[in-house]
């Protein structure tokens, strides 16, 4: 595995700052009444997506979930299309049909972002099968949360993915809570064991990484990617992380023990990477520059036209 270049590390730092600022902006425009429905924010989880996506090739497919803004931005989604989608505008990445939950750009290999917990896991397995059957140097990268590890689709997909050596890499972003419930209250595991240990039941490789450390996540995903394209099967990676916000917009996260959030913020992924690459002094400058980009993109997005029912009708069926 080749170590990330200084340029790559610097771009990851910028991406993580961008994700943070964009998510804060989503909350801001939500409070201004510009976002219909709800939003599921990812502040605190930036390293898992940026590190993982940094290990992917341009042709790789990405599947994420309703908490998927960091994946979209890490994959390079246009900022205005991102905000416009969340605002339900025709100029959005999905023409305003997907909303906050489903912000994808198929030209970036983003093929889905379902709001149904775990639904993307079999789909990613299928995409990985396409790569395997065609003998392509390509994988499907599948992100989901700790809560998805208890639904049938997770187990069914892992079984078939391993059985058929699908070229897929699974990444659990374990943010400690499945909606409002600590994952250990809903997930039967040996005492202290990580969720990724479940891979062993399927004879699948697994890894547990510090999800606050983009470099660690990158290394793990790069190894898993190589294993998958070599025909050695999928890997279940658990990136241990934390979401600073509640489950959705209306959740203040009051069920979290006092001090837990602050303890995690001590290990903020942006700070960890900045320190690692000696760029702590540059963070403010990057933040200032990206804040302008974020603000301008959101302003332009808010001017976007609303989609029509005729447009919606046209999106249901392919010709």
């Amino acid at each position, binding site marked *: 595995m080749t170590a990330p270049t200084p340029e790559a590390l610097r771009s990851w730092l910028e991406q993580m700052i961008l994700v943070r600022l964009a998510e804060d902006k989503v909350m801001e425009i939500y409070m201004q009444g510009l976002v219909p429905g709800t939003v599921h924010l990812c502040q605190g989880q930036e390293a898992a997506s940026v590190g993982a996506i940094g290990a992917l090739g341009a042709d790789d497919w990405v599947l994420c979930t309703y908490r998927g803004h960091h994946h979209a931005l890490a994959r390079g989604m246009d900022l205005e299309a991102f905000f416009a989608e969340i605002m339900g505008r025709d100029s959005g990445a*999905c023409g305003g049909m997907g909303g906050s939950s489903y912000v994808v750009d198929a030209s970036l290999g983003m093929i889905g972002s379902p709001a149904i917990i775990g639904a993307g896991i079999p789909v990613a397995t299928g995409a990985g099968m396409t790569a395997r059957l065609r003998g392509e140097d390509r994988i499907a990268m599948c992100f989901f949360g700790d809560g998805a590890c208890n639904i049938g689709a997770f187990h069914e997909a892992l079984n078939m993915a391993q059985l058929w050596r699908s070229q897929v890499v699974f990444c659990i972003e374990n943010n400690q809570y499945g909606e409002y419930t600590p994952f250990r209250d809903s997930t039967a595991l040996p005492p202290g064991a990580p969720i990724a240990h479940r891979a062993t039941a399927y004879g699948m490789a697994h890894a547990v990484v510090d999800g606050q450390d983009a470099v660690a996540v990158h290394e793990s995903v790069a190894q898993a990617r190589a294993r998958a394209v070599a025909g050695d099967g999928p890997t279940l990676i658990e990136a241990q992380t934390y979401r600073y916000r509640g489950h959705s917009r209306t959740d203040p996260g009051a069920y979290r023990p006092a001090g837990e959030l602050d303890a995690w913020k001590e290990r903020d992924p942006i700070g960890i990477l900045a320190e690692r690459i000696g760029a702590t002094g540059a963070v403010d400058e990057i933040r200032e520059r990206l804040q302008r980009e974020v603000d301008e993109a959101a302003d332009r997005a808010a001017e976007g036209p609303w989609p029509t029912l005729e447009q919606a009708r046209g999106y249901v*069926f392919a010709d």
Partner: protein
Amino acid sequence: MITYREAIRLALDDAMAADETVLLLGEDIAKAGGPFKTTVGLYEKYGAERVFDTPIAENGFCGIALGMALTGLRPVVEIMFSDFLPTAFDAIAMELPRWRFMSGGQTSAPVTVRASGGGGGRFGAQTSSTGESWFLQFYGLMVAAAGSPQGAYGLLRAAIAHNNPVVVFDHKAMHLRKGPVVRGDDRLAEVGKAVVARPGADVTVVASLLMVHRSLEAAEALADEGIDVEVIDISWLRPLDVDTVAASVARTGRLVIAEEQYHDGGWGSALISRLATAGAPLAAPPVAVSMPEVLISHSPPLEDAMIPSTERIADAVRSVCR
């Protein structure tokens, strides 16, 4: 003359020969040739990379099929019994029909889900449903139901070639029935087009699956009584071919629905509603021959009482002619 199930097998074979992106997934369909022998020889002919024996994990492999379809393949999934479709409800009802829409048309999901259903085998409450109308509220799916060997061939070929997800139902009690089948890449059924299985002037009977066969039997019997019955094999439950039925009813003025399902919430009630709201000129109120509101038992007299018989259909035709 070939059997209905052989027509299914030939449709799969011809579709795989015509398009190398077509592949099959299902339980026991590869090495064993399929629980209903609809895939015999295909594993040997096309190999392990195109015919997959799956674990018993319907929701999982339907989701896998979606992933294959989004990335350029055309999977055909076999659900052994229609009654197992609910185990894959999320994948079929909530994922397959919605990903294209949610992406704003960026992706498409050409997945065919085929399922064998229907009663008559004394299989009891959990392996006897046709299931044909279960997915009609999940807009984004096409739904077909084969009422003849030619329909079994043409509908399946059409579904596989179609760029949207299609659920294709067949009926277990039809599997060994024989009929003429014309094969070929030009023999795909037209999507959304019903088939007039028997022309007639006095009464329109609209049926699906096994009920097409029983309606044709009833029509033969009624011909001796001087009643000339037109039988329409509805073939597609979405899109529902209201026009073909409306044109028939405009001539006959009389309508009978023959369906192996509960009436409320099914394609039969939808059809009556569509005709009524369009002001179809009916000389008598329409009659639906459907399943009584009980559940199916394996006990022979009980199952026979559930599934509309040729005689019940004939009686319904007589009743609208009075």
